[in-house]
């Protein structure tokens, strides 16, 4: 009955993973102010309430701004590092690449505290969205490098040389040949960095200035039980938004793979 146990395990795993996610929209449309069964009636009141909270809108905008800048910076750094590591040989390449990847496994609390010390004590700068961006870029760049390295690795090196041979400059060959071919990797790493930054809490909590990010704002609201249904509604909206983003990303990734005639392997959906 080995298969039977495996099946039970798989079902249990999926329930554990998705039940909370399913509960989120359930309570978002529940009329009661307390998060408990049985459900009362259907309402969209919490969503209406959301629309009226100014502070929330500020936090959301703040988070989206931070996530966009973080994702852009991480992808740019990622492209540079991935290209350097796959295309060139240089001394101490191993240790250097290792050092760049370390934030991947470093506890975020350590990154957060040390950045706080550096920013406040050493550099004497005010905390702002930019300090959060610095922290987020630090932890997102390794993800971008990991994804982009595999994209660059899969490229035939002579493609670039062929373009140069046909009269293109080094930069032109990179822009017209290499970038289009790694664009699925760029889109994927951008979205992953965007999501990581959007829901990152610890670094944002330590480094944020007067304007909190969305996770920090939500955390501050959890102290007030009456606000919880609104938080549920907010969570539902974010769930829908991330599903849409993911589908769009997957669509572009598949199209990219198809265009170059590759075999589709991996991907999110």
């Amino acid at each position, binding site marked *: 009955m080995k298969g039977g146990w495996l099946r039970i395990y798989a079902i249990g795993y999926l329930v554990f993973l998705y039940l909370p996610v399913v509960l989120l929209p359930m309570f978002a449309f529940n009329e009661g102010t307390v998060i408990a069964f049985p459900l009362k009636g259907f309402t969209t009141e919490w969503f209406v309430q959301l629309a009226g909270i100014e502070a929330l809108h500020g936090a959301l905008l703040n988070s989206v701004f931070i996530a966009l800048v973080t994702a852009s910076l991480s992808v740019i750094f990622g492209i540079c590092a991935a290209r350097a590591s796959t295309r060139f040989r240089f001394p101490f390449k191993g240790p250097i690449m290792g050092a760049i990847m370390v934030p991947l496994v470093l506890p975020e609390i350590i990154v957060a505290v040390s950045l706080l010390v550096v920013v406040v004590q050493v550099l004497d700068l005010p905390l702002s969205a930019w300090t959060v961006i610095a922290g987020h870029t630090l932890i997102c760049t390794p993800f971008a490098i990991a994804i982009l390295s595999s994209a660059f690795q899969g490229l035939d090196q002579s493609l670039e040389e062929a373009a140069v041979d046909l009269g293109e400059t080094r930069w032109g060959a990179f822009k017209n040949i290499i970038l289009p071919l790694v664009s699925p990797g760029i889109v994927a790493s951008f979205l992953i960095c965007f999501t990581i930054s959007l829901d990152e809490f610890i670094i944002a909590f330590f480094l944020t200035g007067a304007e909190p990010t969305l996770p920090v704002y939500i955390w501050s609201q959890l102290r007030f039980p009456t606000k919880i249904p609104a938080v549920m509604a907010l969570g539902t909206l974010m769930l829908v938004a991330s599903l849409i983003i993911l589908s769009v990303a997957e669509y572009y990734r598949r199209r990219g793979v198809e265009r170059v005639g*590759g075999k589709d392997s991996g991907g999110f959906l």
Partner: protein
Amino acid sequence: MSIISLKAIEKYYGDYHALKGIDCEIAEGEFFSLLGPSGCGKTTLLRVIAGFEDVSSGTVVIGGQNMAGVPANKRPTNMVFQSYAIFPHLSVAENVGYGLRRARLPRAELAEKVNGALKMVGLEGFGGRASHALSGGQRQRVALARALILEPKVLLLDEPLSALDKKMREQMQTELRRLQRQVGITFILVTHDQEEALIMSDRIAVMFEGEIAQLAAPQELYRRPLTRRVGEFIGVMNFLDARQVDTGISQVRFDVDGLGEVEIKPEQLPKGARSFYSVVGLRPEALSIVYDGSPKSAVPGKVVDLSYYGDMTYYEVQLEGTSSPVTISMKNLTSRPVLERGAETQVTWDAGSLVVFAS
């Protein structure tokens, strides 16, 4: 008039000496091959000409112009890569027209040139195809069209046929040769296949370990290899130990193991100093099995093995006084029955086809 002249090219990769003093002139309109075993530096030399590798010392002159400091995109050469390097995200027509993008031609003129190039390589009407949906042979043709459309002074080909199956390869060999005659551009072909080099080239440079061992036309290379190693690399060659007996005015006499005394003309001797002990090289077709008549020089031998090819039979024949058997090729005629393994026979040779190597 030479289109390319290489003078004392040295190339080091760190401590590794990849090219050791390459000197060579390549004539305009020539089909030139670089032939050698894996790792001998053929690709490196081709990349030096294309401008993808810097030389450690020495000069590359193309079309009368010193190429020092001239990057690959400014050189009058184009390359067909071993992997073809077709841009997978562009269509066939976009691939072929890629090099003309900077010229900013009117659309109609560009399309005309692209069609012309595709027609030249036998891919008329393929322009709209996605380039990843092509067969190996078609990719090869696209790569050729893409390079030739720029009308380079020199076309460089790095083992362009090695990824094709045997049938396709043979077809492309003749086609490449025809194309080269048609466009009149100098082709430099890198290959490790000696047969391919012999079939296609006007001249061949045989390379071993970063040096040119011999540079000659195919016939000369086959008939008069300069060293034993070249002889062995090009086709099949039998080697027999020999001792010089005496020197006349127009000939030298050698005592060859297995054959006895043989008269050798001066042009068959190695250039420069030669020693008393030598090695004599013989192609399989320079030896023959005696079927009728009794030639004045014939020695007994025993067939130890044979391979039957339909048109030809290759015999392994053990001669008296030699350690290993020699290979003899015979055309199969009805009047010449194929010998059995173990048969005793007479072997004769064509003295003019012998090559003497300094041992």
